[in-house]
């Protein structure tokens, strides 16, 4: 089967990939869906997940994301979004990267590497953390799982796997006994998210899901004999689970869960879901030039409890001098604000930039996150977003835009 990418979807990919550069590039508009042959992209090495072929055969519109062919949707981003808010959906997030960190010094090493405190985890617990450069800019944001006293797993963004791997290897030298392994290519990852996630999953496993707390995980089996690491985590603002599974078993597990009623969800709805829940996306709300403090991730930067970690001095200074800019939520009145669009104040002066923007299927309005000067960051402030030459009114609103009840 020949597969076609549509120009319009490249916009999406570009938004995601603005990554390391500052997000000032204006979004280019496209002619309506000129089909673009996949072959043109074949020169670039594109990775697949164990489930890519299934997506192709089941109506998934595939796009390039973070070096992988990934489904953006299976027909309707809105319907998929609503399914996760109201019932249960399943995401193939096997493109995410996983590094194992082993050795008696693993906890101390990770404490130095990231801004949160992995050494404080009990085995079976996970945490979210930014990882910074010495200047406070962000290398990536990640999850860290403590598997045992001396063994951890880092879960990193797909588009940052190579960069992060180089970074962790560069900083390993002071800890000679450390053993680092990049297992990204051998691991599949499925996310089951939504209010019915537990109901769907419980009959398929002997793990007692009610007893599994948020950001806790256990090794176990699902569907009689598939070994997984099952964690109560996610990127949607709903209850849910993530299942780490050996790549060769990922497809069979996916099919079983879909058969049991989990609706396949593409990256499009993953983005609208995370944006409503105000979860940051690397390359948008966080980047080499945006610190975790500016992104509103202060609680994950443990300045008080940790004397030495990469970026500490710069972040301490930024905190004591006070932020000059921060990420805020916007509600847009008359159009969709997209990443890269300029934000101006009431005098028409350009003061900031939209980092992520979309239509919110839950609120049925356009929402965005934007980086703006601190003095324009309070709730209710009237700003404007330049949408194709028009100044469209935008109001700073409370985030998250959506919180599950």
């Amino acid at each position: 089967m020949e597969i076609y990418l549509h120009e319009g979807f490249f916009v999406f990919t570009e938004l995601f990939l603005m990554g390391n550069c500052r997000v000032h590039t204006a979004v280019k508009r496209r002619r309506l869906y000129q089909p673009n042959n996949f072959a043109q992209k074949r020169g670039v090495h594109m990775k697949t997940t164990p489930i890519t072929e299934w997506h192709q055969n089941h109506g998934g519109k595939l796009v390039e994301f973070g070096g992988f062919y990934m489904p953006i949707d299976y027909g309707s981003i809105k319907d998929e979004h609503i399914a996760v808010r109201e019932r249960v959906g399943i995401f193939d997030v096997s493109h995410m990267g996983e590094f194992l960190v082993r050795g008696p010094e693993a906890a101390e090493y990770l404490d130095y590497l990231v801004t949160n405190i992995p050494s404080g985890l009990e085995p079976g617990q996970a945490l979210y953390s930014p990882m910074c450069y010495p200047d406070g800019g962000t290398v990536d944001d990640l999850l860290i799982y403590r598997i045992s006293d001396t063994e951890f797993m880092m879960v990193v963004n797909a588009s940052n796997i190579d960069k992060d791997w180089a970074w962790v290897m560069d900083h390993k030298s002071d800890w000679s006994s450390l053993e680092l392994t990049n297992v990204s290519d051998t691991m599949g990852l499925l996310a089951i998210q939504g209010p019915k996630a537990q109901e769907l999953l419980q009959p398929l496993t002997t793990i007692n899901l009610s007893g599994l707390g948020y950001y806790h995980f256990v090794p176990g089996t699902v569907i009689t004999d598939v070994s997984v690491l099952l964690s109560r985590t996610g990127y949607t603002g709903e209850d849910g689970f993530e299942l780490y599974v050996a790549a060769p078993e990922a497809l069979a597990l996916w099919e079983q869960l879909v058969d049991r009623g989990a609706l396949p969800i593409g990256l499009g709805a993953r983005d609208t879901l995370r944006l409503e829940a105000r979860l940051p996306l690397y390359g948008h709300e966080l980047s080499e030039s945006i610190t975790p403090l500016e992104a509103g991730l202060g609680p994950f930067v443990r300045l008080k409890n940790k004397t030495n970690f990469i970026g500490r001095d710069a972040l301490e200074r930024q905190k004591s001098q006070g932020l000059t800019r921060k990420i805020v939520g916007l509600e847009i009145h008359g159009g969709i604000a997209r990443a890269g669009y300029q934000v101006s104040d009431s005098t028409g002066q350009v003061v900031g930039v939209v980092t992520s923007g979309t239509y919110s299927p839950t609120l049925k309005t356009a929402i965005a996150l934007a980086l703006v000067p601190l003095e324009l960051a309070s709730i209710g402030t009237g700003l404007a977003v330049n949408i194709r030459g028009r100044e469209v009114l935008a109001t700073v609103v409370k985030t998250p835009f959506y919180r599950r009840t």
Partner: protein
Amino acid sequence: MNLPKNLRYTTDHEWIDEEGRVGITEYAQEALGDVVFVELPQVGRSLKAGEAFGVVESVKSVSDLYSPVAGVVVAVNIELSSQPELVNLDPYGAGWIIKLDPEMDSAELLLADAYRSQIEGA
């Protein structure tokens, strides 16, 4: 795919009918996904053939709309301001976008069969 015989089509996936009404095709709305915003032109604006006159936004993409022929915009579908999803639900009916007073014949545009082979052969 539904491609009514009475319409003329462009390679940019717009259609125009005998009365000068313009919209996007079934193929286009399907490729776009859920339409969530349509930017409409001013009534009275004069358009050249192929000129961008508006924008249709889905959750994840922004696409220009191009005029199939030269003409003056005599009406816009104001319903789309509150119900942009009409473009998905009824692309050849309630989802029409503008109405033109054409200054030229649309006879040179594609017939349904020619457009069909265009999208199927693409």
